[in-house]
């Protein structure tokens, strides 16, 4: 069997197992333990925190990577026309690295404390961005003319 097919099978098994664990701990567990229970069980909390943590890691990791890339650029000196326009790109990149690391540490600490806000805030940001985009596209569709008005033909 080609190696790629083996990877395919592994991907299938792992994703199915993880999906099963997620749905069991995040839905079945809390429902079985009493849906109105004010305290979430550990497993239910982490079933949400882990996938959300990956999302946070990707976004903050991208921010850190951008800062790091700018900090470590090694190219020929810029064009003479550009030099005088340079702003404080490197200090800003350093700041970006610091901020992303700090946010990541804050998130990890929040998860360690099993804080509701550690999950709610990044989830809110992501939801607002996605829904905001859908809203914006919908608004653009509504306010854009489907055809030219008769006098413009």
């Amino acid at each position: 069997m080609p190696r790629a097919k083996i990877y395919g099978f592994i991907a299938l098994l792992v994703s199915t197992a993880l999906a099963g664990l997620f749905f069991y701990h995040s839905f079945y567990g809390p429902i079985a333990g009493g849906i109105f229970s004010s305290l979430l069980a550990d497993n239910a909390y982490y079933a949400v925190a882990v996938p959300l943590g990956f999302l946070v890691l990707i976004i903050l990791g991208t921010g850190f990577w951008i800062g790091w890339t700018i900090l470590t650029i090694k190219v020929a000196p810029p064009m003479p026309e550009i030099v005088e326009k340079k702003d404080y790109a490197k200090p800003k990149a350093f700041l970006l690295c610091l901020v992303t690391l700090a946010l990541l540490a804050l998130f990890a600490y929040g998860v360690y404390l099993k804080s509701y806000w550690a999950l709610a805030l990044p989830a809110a940001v992501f939801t607002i961005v996605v829904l905001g985009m859908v809203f914006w596209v919908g608004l653009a569709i509504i306010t854009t003319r489907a055809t030219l008005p008769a006098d413009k033909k």
Partner: protein
Amino acid sequence: MRALFLCYRGNPFCGGQGIYLYYLTRELAKLGVEIDVIVGPPYPDPMEKWAKVYRTENLNIWSIRTEHFGYEKLTRLLSPMNFVDYFLTRFHIFPEMETFSLRAFNLTRKLLKTRRYDIIHDVQCLGWGLLPMKGFGVPIITTVHHPLTKDREADFIRDATFWEYVTTTLFYPLTMQRTVINRLDRVITSSLEGVEELVKAFGLEREKISVVYNGLDVEVFSHGGEKREENSLLFVGNTEDYKKGIRYLLEALTLLPEKIKLKIVDDGPPQRIGAWDLAKKFHVEDRITFTGKVDMATLVRLYCTATMVVVASLHEGFGLPAAEGMACETPVVSTTSGALKEVMKHGETGILVPPKDPRALADAIMGLMKDKKLRQKMGKAGRKRAVENFSWPVAAKNTLEVYKDTIAAYRSNR
């Protein structure tokens, strides 16, 4: 043999990959290869005579504001893949390669229900979708003329502000390309210089890389007896691309006599103002002409009537204007950057000078201007070199050899 080509942009007049797809598939078909093509927009000129073409969707919305999409594109945004495209482009990410490769994966999966392929040939997409394609049991090769690291470096040189650095970093999908290219069966590049660049940029093993020189249509690019203009330089390329070195050519123009004029095959103001601003800075604006975007026939005529072609690039994956000029029997003054020193023969088909050296460029131009016989001799030698090395039939024959070698190696390893 049956080959499946994947090309995320197919229009022959927008970027090298479209030209590569069109002519290479045509010549491979003449050699008996059955060709299927999955291609994204802008779509190529009709290729149905020699290939079966499957067109995938892409909205090409990078850098376009939502309110300028138009109604038809807006309504298509709500499909999942287009929304992913939309989402990522709003953060200055260029997702065309990713989404094209995923669409190509889905389409290939359907095609494989009724068709078999001996090889899949990606044309510098290197998207994530190529990785699951490895499960199809077909060797996958890619053509990369030069790694995107070169383009990113050039952009970093132009970038002035923190925000410009951020957008440049986000734009180039280098992590994806590095991951994917190392997992493909073979990589074709268009020069020996390209091999070193790929090794440096992606940590690729040298044994995985084959060199096949690019092709050009030597029947179309040929001198038909047109009268040559005197004191006329020709520059063909994107003036907004720092790597093309227009800045150094304009500076060299200040060191040359007033009678020497420069034609630039690209848009000038108001569409593109970078070169015009530089020309004004160097006080040579009355000696340059912008032709705008031209069709093939006009381009050939410009090559055939120019006294010489000047390639001032700081980097070239191949250097098509040099090869096209040579095919039109026009001597070329070029820098030694990238593959240009392989395309050209110093002293035979033109003159090579170091990059970023306006004085050397001006001296070489002046030396050739003074010697008409040498120009004619170089023109003839250039034509011969272009026909023998850089014609599409030669490129196709060499590509077919790479296919055979890759397939044999793939099957022996299974």
